[in-house]
Structures are given as structure tokens and as C-alpha cells.
């Protein structure tokens, strides 16, 4: 507040301890992240024998080379890009179509419709009936199974609706109605251009969800060519099954397979996070904003 005034002794202690606490939080969260990156570019030997503890030991891009050769990863990457882009586009469109009308005060039946949406947040039919439904309408093992059943999140819809209600001045609507502008046009020409921040937030929410999603793919897909990246990651990272035929190994390397497996894992973790790492610093504040709008009425 008033930095010029010398702070009393107690407050200086407070500041020191506070910085210490914050530093602890900071390092606790940061350390595993650094460790992963360091391990991914270290020598296989050093990783397996545990000599890497903070900075890279030796330097080797073998892990990344293995990731690059592991062509399943690229199949997964391409699929995930597809699911994330097409799926998100679809999500955002459906969300707007629900959020905008429900943000309009004069709409009869608005509360009833809103209730129908909100109720699905409180109660659902469960895993098995949902699976059977997807199966019965013939979506099983199609790419649409990862897009249509999750077409909209009611939570995101409420966030967007809250934004429409609070940030689009009512006068705009009245003025354009007088000018003979219909609702479609008003939404398209006035509301959406004014809603760039919330559109960014919602797009990001959905995109991250698609990129990180594995469970629906696990139950709905059985054709590996349609698998998203996360399912291949699950094979390698969790089930520890590396398809060695994909790695171009000579005999010497086969001996080092164990070490290479570790490098492959660390490399995979880094590579699979690249889209998020690249986007994250730019979108972080939008996420925060979205959460704020959501908690306003959540």
C-alpha cells in the first residue's frame, strides 16, 4: 500500500515467511514438471539409475527420436486434433444455440427449459444406459461417438448465458428490433461479435476437454486407427506396453530397450502436452475469467 513507509519488524518477518510459503508451493508444483523435461533429454542410463534429479544428465534426444518413430503416436495426434477441432466447433455452436435464447428475458417457458437443462447436471441415467443408447443408435466405433454424445456441457452453457445476460446491453436489442432486425441476425451480427472473450473461454474449455479425454474413446471405439492420442498414451504410460516393432532397433539398442522405454515415456509426456504448453500462457487469463463468470451464478 504505502511502500515508502518503512515496515515494522513484525511485518518484515511476515513478508519473509509469506515468501517462503509461496516459494514452497511454487517449487512443489514446479519440480515434477522440470523433472519430466530433464529426464526426457537425459541419457537413458542416467534416467534408469536415478542420477537425474533436477537438471538433465548427459544429453540425448533418443527419447524424442523414439517418439517420432512410434507412428501410433502420430495417428493419435492426428485423431486428437480432429476430435478437438471438429468437436469443439460443434460444442460451441450448440452451446450458443442454447445459451442465447435462454438469456432473453421475454421468452415464455424459459424457466422450464432451463430446468430441463440444469436437471441433467444433477442426475443422469448412468454409464450403462448411455453406452447402450450410443450403441443402439449406431454410433459405436464411429468418430461421431466422441463428438455427438458430448455435444454440450450445461455448465459451459450457463457460463455463456450469464455473459450474454450481463454484458450485452438491452438497449442494443431494442434498437435493432426497431430497425427490423430479426433474432438470428441480431445473434449473428451483434451478440457474437461482442462476445469474443466468452467465446474464447468456452472454446478453450471444450478444446482441453477433448484433447484430454480418454474414457469415452475407451468404451466407444475399438478400431485403433480412430484412437485419440490419450489412448495410445495409456497403452505406453499406464499399461507399459510398447510396441517394439515400431522402434527401429538394432541389437545394441535392444539391450538398452529398458532405458529407451523410460525415455520414450518422458518424451511422450512432453510431446503430448505441446499443444497445451504452447497455448497455455496466452489463454491462462481467459480461463481465470471464465471461471469467474461461472462461479458468479454457478
Amino acid at each position, binding site marked *: 500500500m504505502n511502500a515508502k513507509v518503512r515496515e515494522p519488524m513484525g511485518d518484515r518477518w511476515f513478508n519473509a515467511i509469506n515468501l517462503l510459503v509461496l516459494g514452497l508451493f511454487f517449487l512443489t508444483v514446479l519440480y515434477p514438471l522440470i523433472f519430466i523435461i530433464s529426464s526426457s533429454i537425459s541419457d537413458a542410463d542416467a534416467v534408469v539409475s536415478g542420477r537425474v534429479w533436477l537438471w538433465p544428465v548427459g544429453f540425448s534426444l533418443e527419447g524424442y527420436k523414439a517418439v517420432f518413430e512410434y507412428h501410433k503416436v502420430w495417428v493419435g495426434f492426428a485423431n486428437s486434433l480432429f476430435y478437438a477441432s471438429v468437436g469443439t466447433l460443434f460444442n460451441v455452436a450448440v452451446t450458443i444455440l442454447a445459451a442465447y435464447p435462454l438469456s432473453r428475458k*421475454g421468452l*415464455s417457458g424459459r424457466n422450464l427449459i432451463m430446468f430441463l437443462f440444469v436437471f441433467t447436471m444433477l442426475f443422469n441415467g448412468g454409464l450403462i444406459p448411455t453406452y447402450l443408447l450410443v450403441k443402439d443408435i449406431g454410433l459405436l466405433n464411429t468418430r461421431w461417438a466422441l463428438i455427438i454424445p458430448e455435444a454440450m456441457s450445461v455448465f459451459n452453457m450457463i457460463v455463456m448465458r450469464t455473459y450474454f445476460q450481463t454484458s450485452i446491453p438491452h438497449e442494443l436489442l431494442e434498437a435493432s428490433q426497431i*430497425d427490423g432486425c430479426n433474432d438470428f441476425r441480431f445473434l449473428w451480427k451483434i451478440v457474437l461479435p461482442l462476445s469474443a472473450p466468452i467465446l474464447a473461454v468456452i472454446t478453450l474449455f471444450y478444446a482441453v476437454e477433448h484433447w484430454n479425454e480418454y474414457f469415452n474413446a475407451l468404451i466407444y471405439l475399438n478400431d485403433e486407427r480412430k484412437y485419440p492420442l490419450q489412448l495410445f498414451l495409456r497403452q505406453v504410460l499406464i499399461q507399459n506396453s510398447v510396441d517394439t516393432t515400431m522402434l527401429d532397433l538394432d541389437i545394441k539398442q535392444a539391450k538398452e530397450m529398458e532405458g529407451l522405454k523410460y525415455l520414450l515415456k518422458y518424451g511422450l509426456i512432453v510431446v503430448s502436452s505441446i499443444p497445451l504448453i504452447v497455448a497455455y500462457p496466452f489463454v491462462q487469463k481467459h480461463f481465470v475469467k471464465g471461471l469467474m463468470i461461472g462461479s458468479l451464478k454457478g
Partner: protein
Amino acid sequence: MPSEPLPLSPVPHTTRRTPLSGFGKSLRKHWQLYAMLAIPLLYVFIFKYGPMYGAQIAFREYVPAKGIWDSRWVGLDNIHRFFTNYDFWRIMRNTLGLSLYYLVAQFPFPILLALSLNYVKWNRFRKTVQLVTYAPHFISVVVIVGMILQFLDPRTGIVNIVLGIFGADPVDFMGNPAHFKSVYVWSQIWQNVGFQCIIFLAALSSIDPSLHEAAVVDGASKLQRMRHIDLPGLMPLAVILLILHTGQMMDIGFQKVLLMQNPVNLITSETIDTYVYKIGLLSQALNYSYATAIGLFKNIINLILILFVNSIAKKLRQESLW
């Protein structure tokens, strides 16, 4: 756009008379809005209400070839089968135990982080801490569990190497059922503490600054201000969040638990959701009805909990906030 409305244009809001003709009018006037709603409504009816309708197979002996209606009605047999199941209490205990452990253990950390961030004047550091602590929230659950497995590996994991330095024997964290809950909970806290603190930061920024000014004038130290202004300011929110989270007790991070399971730790790691998944979709036998019944049991408890807990939160909010 005209700067003032034309005098002859109809005024939109005053034409509503009785509710019935009001709806007819609204439909005619706003047909485009209803048209927009058609797609999302169709979506929730098919994909959200559809499964609710389908959930009736919990009370039948569902055979896919016969369809829902022609499968035999068995009433509460499936639920009864679950209640009398040898595994029932273990699964309930695991589910609730994991939830409670997480709920209690995570409680102080986002608050502490928010308070601490709030008193740092060094802006760059503050921003960096926020950037880093929010980041793990976006890591996928598969990668998180992959990281856990790497770090806790009994032979090569960094945790055991550090334990080794202090002369401790290596611990097989994933292979020992006793450790499952802790590994789950603390990795969950690690991943989410930053993101959860956001809402507390917002609450802190809405505390009336005149309180702090008055306290400074009265010679209060920072610690006193934190204890007597900030902490009481956060408590209503903290309590409400805690209560709301108890409403979701039965819904503990299913996807993560499933990934962390292995045959050895199943004794403590099997929760209702993972059990439903295995009974219904993984097992060779046809168990759709039984699995649905278990899921429905969970969802109904969930619904009751949420409604109950929300009404408490509402009352508290009225008393403590406004």
C-alpha cells in the same frame, strides 16, 4: 442505428395479457429463438433423458435382443443383489473414504495459497507462481497417472531414490493397497491447488479495502490483518464450497481411479464407478441390468445429497453473506 426510437413502432413488452395467449404470442414473436433451442433440446432429450429412460433396465432382466420393454421385470432384485454382495461394504467404504480423505486434506491448501499470493507485492513473482500453479490443472489424467507411476516406481522412481538417500527401504506405492488413497489424494491436490485458489483470490479482492485501511491506521500488523480480516472474509465461501463438494461425495474422480488401479491395490481402489464399468462393460457375462442398478443407486444417492446440501448452503448463504 437511429438515435431515438420512431414514435409509431410497437413497444415489445407491454402487449402480454393472459399467460396462455402470452405463450402463443411469444411463440409467434420469438419463433426464431425457439428454433435455435430446438437443437440443444433435441440433444438433451436424446442423450441425457434417453439414458434416464433406459435406466429402467435396472428393474428388468435386460436382454439386448428383446429390447427394453420386452425384457422381464424383476423389480428390486438387482439392487438387492448388490446390497447383499460380498463386495458391497468394501466398495462403499472405498468410495466414501476416498472422498472424505480428499475433502479434508485439500481444504486448507487453496486458502493458504490465495492468502499468501494476496500479500506478495513483487508482481513478477506473483504472476509466475500463478502461471505455474495453475498449469497442472490442464494436464490430462492419463499423463498425470503416467507421471505418478514414473515417480513412484520402486526401482527407478525419484521418490524411492530420495528415500534411499535417507536410508529407507524402497516403497512399492502402487503395489501396496495401504498407499492407494494417499497417492490419489495428494497427486490430486498437487494438480488442482492452483486452480482452486482462483476463486478464493476473487473473494479476497472483493473484501472491502476500507477494513484494511482502518486496521492499518489502528496499527494492526499484516499477520493480524490476515487473521482478523482476510480469513473471516474467506470462511463463508470456504464452508459453502466444502458443503457443495460433500454433495458430490459419490462421484470421486472415476477416470483417474480407473487408471491407477492394478490387481494388487484393488482392495482399496475399487469404487462404485469403476465397479459399474467392470461389471457392465468389461465382464464377459451379460450384466447390463445389474451394473445399471448399481449406477442408479449411486445416482439417486447423489441427487438426494446434492439437493440436501444445496438447501443447507442456501440457508447459510442467506445468514452469513447477506
